[in-house]
């Protein structure tokens, strides 16, 4: 059984930053394994620990820089990694359909039984790439999964989904399938020193979209970014800076005015 995990970089913006055209200047960005994907990866690695015949392969879109993040995934227990990129993609905001085309091309080569992916990436929060991927592959799909139980003989997965407002759904899904994994489903491990050493020698293959059978037209998005800027904030904060006991009385009054005091 093969599990494909999509792994993205999580890009975090520092509290102070500058904008360079349509992007945040690189100096103010830090890169890490996307928190949501970390849970998806952990779920796959746990499966491979329970069953000897489970192979975990990661798929990542990004330039050579992302290999550092991909190595983290290998250090945590993935067996192999594929990175797909073309210089033409640099500077573009990839919309979910385009991202899904790239990932689907990897999936067609790998023919996984299960694709796991994080619910979303922090920066654009579409949450839509998993859906588009399932659609393009013709796989079943379930999102925001917070409990996953696979019956390998029947080829069915029972999944719990978490919806807004604390409501949970239970769904049976036939494999092959794409699941987007919610944070909190498991406790992602830290890479061990041994894992980090082993990761250096695990296969990490770089492929271009054309090598995976995609044409330039497959990468044209109908969503393009013209500019990026900070919203104007009108801070009209009321400050309380006195002694704690003085302030406490004023706060208690304020709370009562606001009608929140029980």
């Amino acid at each position, binding site marked *: 059984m093969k599990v494909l995990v999509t792994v993205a970089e999580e890009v975090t*913006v520092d509290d102070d930053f500058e904008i360079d055209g349509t992007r945040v200047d690189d100096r103010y960005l830090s890169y890490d394994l996307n928190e*949501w994907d970390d849970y998806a990866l952990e779920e796959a690695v746990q499966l491979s620990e329970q069953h000897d015949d489970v192979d975990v392969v990661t798929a990542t879109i990004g330039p050579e820089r992302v290999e550092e993040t991909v190595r983290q995934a290998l250090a945590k227990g993935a067996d192999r990694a594929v990175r797909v990129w073309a210089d033409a993609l640099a500077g573009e905001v990839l919309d*979910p359909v385009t991202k*899904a085309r790239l990932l689907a091309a990897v999936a067609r080569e790998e023919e996984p039984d299960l694709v796991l992916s994080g619910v979303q990436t*922090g920066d*654009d*929060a*579409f*949450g*839509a790439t998993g*859906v*588009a991927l*399932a*659609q*393009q592959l013709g796989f*079943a*799909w379930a*999102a*925001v999964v917070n409990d996953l139980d696979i019956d390998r003989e029947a080829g069915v997965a029972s999944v719990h989904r978490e919806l*807004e*407002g*604390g*409501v*949970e*759904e*239970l*769904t*049976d*899904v*036939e494999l092959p399938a794409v699941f987007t994994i919610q*944070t*909190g489903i498991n406790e992602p491990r830290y890479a061990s020193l041994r894992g980090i050493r082993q990761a250096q020698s695990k296969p990490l293959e770089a492929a271009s979209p054309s090598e995976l059978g995609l044409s330039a037209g497959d990468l044209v998005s*109908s*969503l*393009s*970014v*013209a*500019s*990026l800027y900070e*919203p104007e*904030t009108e*801070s*009209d*904060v*009321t*400050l*309380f*800076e006195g002694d*704690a006991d003085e*302030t*406490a*009385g004023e*706060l*208690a009054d304020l*709370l*009562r005015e*606001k009608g*929140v*005091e*029980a």
Partner: protein
Amino acid sequence: MILTFVEHEAGVPEDTTLEALTFARDVADQTDSAIEAVVFGDEGPAVADEVGAYGVGAVHAVSHPDLDTYAPEAWGESVSQLVDELSPEAVIAPGSDRGHEVLAHTAAKRDLAMAANCLEVEAGDSYELTRQRWGGTLLEHARLSGETKLLSAAPNEISAEPADDGGEAAVQEFEPDLEESDLRVQISSIEESDEEGIPLGEARTVVSGGRGVGSPEGFDKLEELADLLDAAIGSSRAAVNEGWRSHDDQIGQTGTKISPKLYIPCGISGAVQHMVGCKGAENIMAINTDPEAAIIQKAEYAVIGDLHEVVPELNEAIREETGQ
């Protein structure tokens, strides 16, 4: 025509849907189009009574013998078939989990790009959009082209207002042509979460703590405050990473999103990931030692002080006032 996806609970549209309808009306005015709605479930007529006031002229009530619960692929397919039949100018969904999910399916089926979390639109041949990135920390001007524009309205950003010339919405039944494969993911049961106390996501008042709390025991004072205010308790990702609180308590982009009347973050700096989770709060009263902390800029009230001193005093003051 602008087709809007309506999410409702027993016939009452969700707040994010009313926001999306208000947003849709702006697009409709610019393009001189009508607004119609797509509704799933048996409550089409009840929904029509509600959304007519928001300028919706017709409600397409989707029903199918095999479709009695939420089935994301089937819903996306149904919307896609309505797009074939009605050729709307745009499909607009609320920026909620289901809104994004259904829109994403529609986008994937039609191989169209979608623009999520939009705030403003200048509608022409292509749409010039202002939309949120990084959970609203940054805004983006973007251009969306394509035959049918797929957009979601950023949640908790647009104030929902009925139309001046609202009226009655007609109900039209629509039975989609669904295949078995569209129905392979369906809800088999729904469980209410078994967490004790007030669910974070629904609480009217929320007290939370971050790195500044310093220890698991540090949360005792916050728990006390929460009890006094009948509030739910939450935490930042930092406090969860430290192992002081469980992930269930986490407020933020990778945790629960809250929308209380009053939010009281204590010892939380207000990193982007946290602010995404609490931007639905009506008022923020921050307690923090650092007057430069990002959360102070986002707060209506800020106490510059040590939570370990302020919170016990506050608890005391509330007890005195209320005689608890």
